[in-house]
């Protein structure tokens, strides 16, 4: 829970030392379904490498057979052969690259879908304690890092290795002594690459950290610009920014310096190898031991020999960061699903027909809470389920609601009103007691049946992006009746696209009141057996307020509904009022009864609903 500033930046950049075999095996399991694609890529890779390696050898023969002896006939044919090798190499390489990118994309497509599906089944607690940003990173950058490994890392590493091995074999076969000369620079080169790459990696990480810090500062000062201005601290902020900017510049220059040594250095070493080769080869040629073609072929091979070595350590980086990412991905995939989903799998359908009691005979209440105790799990650091319990939010709550009746929950903020609705939806597991829906423990009702018979209206009317109609249809099939009961069309009619109007991200294009109406309609379209309504506290203009009250008056009478009520009209129309205070039910009854009793409700009523006192 307590992050130092550095932990925060490193959280998503951690590196795995060494290579975890089990992790690799698990990644491989996602590749296996595409083994034909992988085989094709490997085949193309082998052919491409062969063509590439053939090139310089063809030149050798070309020189020795045609150029040196002055043989013109057949020269054109040999050149065509060389061209064929070139084109073949090109063609196969791109075939391979294409196959590999299909492979990589398919794997991450499947992986993303699986992650998303898993996410849908995680308990609400998981979302309470995991920042949205972190979840987003799992499904985006982490998946991309894995894709990078599959597309450009894995196969091209095989390619590089085979080019190196092939070249080495050909060189040794053509001329042992020249081959030794060619390889003589190799140890120096490898050492150079390793030493510099290590420092480059460190400098790069440091630079990225400074960049992240600077950008975080920027982001904060853009969002909090009002504070900066209010205190007239533009100058001070500027100074601090200059410092961060300067630190970043220092790091980036350090990296630049390293790279400026690295690239020319590698090339210089390669060039020195060519010079050595030229010298030894030239002397060999003079003594007749080396043909001229062999010398030229060696020069060509040597030129191609160094690129893979230069890239080798980048590949290792890709592999490492991909492994770190996949570990995080698999951690998400291994996250335990919410019990209601797990059970659904174990007992597919309790019974097709509802048990007799569910038919709602007068004796069985629609909703019953029996001595329910609940506390939200304390947000533990690691995001694992089953942390400590927080302070109890509900303390022995019991009440019943008969079918066809409306129950209004009233009470001060923090009394546990909204929690009651969440628990009925089984968003959280209760600690003690029982919640019954039409006489059945909700833990024994399959999820789809449970949630299918409930409809929830949240306090903050969240809409999905899409049209108004789509939003209503998200609730259920009874769109027409829902729209007309709520009167949604009274305001959509004024829009040129009517019900097909796009509501924008989270419904921003609609007013607060309109969003509330749409979310009512969405709930009604479900034809729920019990409606759960968390009334919004935010105030809306009088016209919309009137419409909302009208809509509620159209919904509530005769409907089984549990309402967290803030409106007087809603409370008055309720058949039963449940007064919550500090996690307990303090009073229960009708408006008249409670007023007559002269308890908390009577005073609350006076406080909240009676104008002026």
């Amino acid at each position, binding site marked *: 829970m307590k*992050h130092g500033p550095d932990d925060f930046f490193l959280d998503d950049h951690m590196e795995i030392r060494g290579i975890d075999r089990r992790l690799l095996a698990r990644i491989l399991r996602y590749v296996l379904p595409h083994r034909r694609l992988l085989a094709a890529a490997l085949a193309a890779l082998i052919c491409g490498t062969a063509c590439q390696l053939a090139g310089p050898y063809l030149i050798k023969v070309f020189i020795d057979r*045609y150029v040196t002896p002055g043989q013109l006939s057949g*020269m054109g044919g040999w*050149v065509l052969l060389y*061209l064929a090798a070139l084109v073949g190499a*090109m063609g196969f390489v791109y075939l391979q690259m294409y196959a590999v990118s*299909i492979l990589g*994309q*398919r794997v991450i497509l499947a992986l993303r*879908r699986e992650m*998303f*599906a898993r*996410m*849908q089944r995680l308990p*609400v607690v998981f*979302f309470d304690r995991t920042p949205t940003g972190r*979840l*987003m990173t799992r499904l*985006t950058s982490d998946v991309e890092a894995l894709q990078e490994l599959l597309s450009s890392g894995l196969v091209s590493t095989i390619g590089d290795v085979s080019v190196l091995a092939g070249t080495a074999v050909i060189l040794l076969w053509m001329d042992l002594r020249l081959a030794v000369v060619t390889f003589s620079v190799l140890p120096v080169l490898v050492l150079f690459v390793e030493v510099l790459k290590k420092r480059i990696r460190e400098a790069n990480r440091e630079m990225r950290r400074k960049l992240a810090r600077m*950008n*975080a500062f*920027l*982001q904060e*000062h853009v969002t909090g610009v*009002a*504070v900066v*201005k*209010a*205190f*007239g601290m533009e*100058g001070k902020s500027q100074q601090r920014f*200059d410092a961060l900017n300067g630190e970043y510049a220092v790091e980036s220059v350090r990296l*630049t310096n390293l790279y*400026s040594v690295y*690239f020319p250095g590698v*090339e*210089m070493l390669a*060039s*020195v190898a060519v010079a*050595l080769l*030229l010298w030894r080869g*030239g*002397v060999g040629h*003079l003594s007749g031991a080396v043909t001229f073609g062999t010398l*030229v072929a060696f*020069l060509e091979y040597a*030129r191609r020999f160094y690129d893979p070595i230069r890239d080798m350590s980048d590949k290792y980086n890709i592999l490492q960061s991909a492994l770190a990412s996949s570990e995080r991905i698999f951690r998400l995939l291994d996250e335990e699903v919410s019990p209601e989903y797990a059970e659904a799998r174990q007992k597919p359908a309790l019974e097709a027909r509802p048990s007799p009691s569910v038919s709602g005979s007068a004796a069985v209440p629609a909703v019953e809470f029996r001595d329910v105790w609940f506390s939200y799990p304390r947000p533990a650091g690691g995001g694992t389920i089953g942390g400590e319990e927080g302070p109890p939010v509900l303390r022995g709550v019991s009440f019943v609601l008969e079918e066809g009746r409306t129950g209004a929950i009233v009470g*001060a903020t923090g009394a546990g009103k909204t929690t009651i609705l969440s628990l009925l*939806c089984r*968003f959280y597991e209760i600690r003690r007691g029982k919640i019954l829906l039409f006489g059945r423990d909700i833990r024994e009702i399959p999820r789809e049946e449970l*949630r299918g018979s409930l*409809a*929830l209206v949240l306090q903050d009317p*969240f809409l*999905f992006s899409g049209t108004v109609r789509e939003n209503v249809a998200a*609730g259920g099939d009874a769109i027409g009746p829902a729209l007309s009961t709520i009167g949604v069309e009274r305001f959509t009619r004024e829009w040129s696209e009517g019900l097909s109007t796009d509501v924008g991200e989270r419904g921003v294009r609609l007013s607060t009141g309109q969003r509330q109406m749409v979310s009512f309609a969405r709930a009604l379209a479900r034809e729920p057996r019990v409606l759960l309504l968390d009334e919004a506290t935010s105030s809306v203009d009088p016209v919309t307020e009137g419409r909302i009250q009208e809509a509620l008056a159209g919904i509530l009478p005769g409907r089984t509904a549990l309402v967290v009520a803030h409106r007087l009209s809603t409370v008055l129309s309720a058949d039963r009022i449940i007064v919550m205070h*500090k996690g307990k039910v303090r009073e229960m009854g009708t408006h008249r009864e409670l007023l007559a009793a002269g308890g*908390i409700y009577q005073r609350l009523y*006076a406080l909240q609903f009676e104008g002026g*006192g």
Partner: protein
Amino acid sequence: MHRRVYALCVAGLLVSSVFGLLVPWMIREAVDAVSAARAGGPPGEGRLLRAVELMVLFTILNAFFRFLSRRSLFVAARDVEREVRRRLFSHVVRLPIRFFHETPTGDVMSRLTNDLSAVWIFLGPGLLMLVGTIISWLLAVAFMLRISPMLTGVSLLIAPAVVYLSREYGHAFHLRHRLVQESLASMNATLQENVSGIRLVKAFTLETREEERFSGECERYYRQNLAVARTSAAFHGAIGLLAGVGVALVLFLGGRAVVQGAITLGGFVAFNAYLAMLSFPTMAMGWVINLFQRGSSAMGRINEFLRLPVELPEGGTGPAGEGATPVGDAVGSGIGEPRLLEVRGLAFSYGGDGRGEALRDISFSARKGEVLGLVGPTGGGKSTLFSLLSGLYPAPPGTVFLEGIDASTIPLPELRRRFAVVSQDPFLFSDSVLENVCFGQERTDPEAARYATGLAGFLAEVEEMPNGFDTVVGERGISLSGGQKQRATIARALCAGAPILLLDDALSAVDAETERVIFKGILSEKGERTVLFSTHRMASLSRCDRILVLADGRIVEEGTHDDLLSLRGAYFDLYSRQMLARELEESS
């Protein structure tokens, strides 16, 4: 200054290119020496050795100069980047608050990050590539012409086509890549929406629908990516084929020329080496051109921001004038000493065209050391009034006076420093508690911070934190509760030591008892400090010297607590309700 660095850099590149291009020439020398000796000419060892020695020398010189020019160019580019970023930040932070309300944060950030890096990429690697390629081209062609004009002509035939193709490719790639980015953004939006609406998803059993929706997005992203891969493969194939034909042609014609004695074997080998040296830069030319285009459009977007007018430090609006003189008759009462704060006939609307008036005809004044309570329904205009007083939005001239001086003529930073504002939603920087509390001071003062934190009723909790005042809060540190944040911002305001303290419903997240304690702390300390305090809690209001009741953008009642109660108006209504609430709280 940068011009000199760039000139040096071009010179360095020129020198290094000359040495680089001399390397194949030495190969030619070596090969010719050997083949001449084999053909019965003079013994070749000496010539061979010299050629190889020179080759090593040129190689080293080439690398050295390349290192120098590369380094100096990149450092210069980083300098420019840093300077532009500094100027951009300094400019942006001085733009009027209205700008930030109208411009999405993402847009501002993207110019400060992505656009800047596009500029750097062009100024650094892009320019290096561009200049390097041009120099290499000119020099290599000269060397190649010396070997064989005919072969040079043949190879140059292909070059324009390669450049053209690579440019087209860069263009197509950029377009397709943008599509990929767009589908990625849309996929992320779906994901974000799903996570924020997860309760509804679960409540309405929309899991399957959401999976299908997300799946569709993934699928689209997948297709766009494959389109990029296809484009890339096609263009690379075409360029590869073209280059292959060129190489084969040179091989054939060159081989024949050697046989016919038109060029030497060494010339033939060197020619091929030059060709190989040119092939990559030629292919990269298109890429460089694209970098240039992207860099210049990014610079355009940056300049767009830099051209926006900043807040004038002399005062809120344009004509500053020398009018910072006390306006005698602004002091309505005519008593000698001007009021510390006087507001006269202040009206304001956010639209600027009089639409949606937020404040209408507000007039009141406050003496030094006075504590004014502000009360009224949400949307009544309290926050707007605070924003105007503190100069966050410029108040119209002649409406707000500080010690008799029109606020619109007071330099903005000075004006703002006279007020310490605590806004409704507390914003803290992710920094240590100490730095946050001392934010309003030029220098961090731990003693003052301690004292202010104590007054704000936050000291005990800070001391319980893992690192006390050095504990980092916010995004990078521990998260504070709403009440803790509010008290931290109050401490920040107190620590700033401004003569006027504006508390905008700043204690809504603490309980009544804590509010009482904090309020007492502020009052005991008030001395010279004037406080404007908006709250809903009667207990605090009753301690104020005077209370303003604000509704619908105007002051509807004004007076002391007792005055207002006896009016039996809006304030009395509020009071009665609060009393009931208290009774309720006590009863439980």
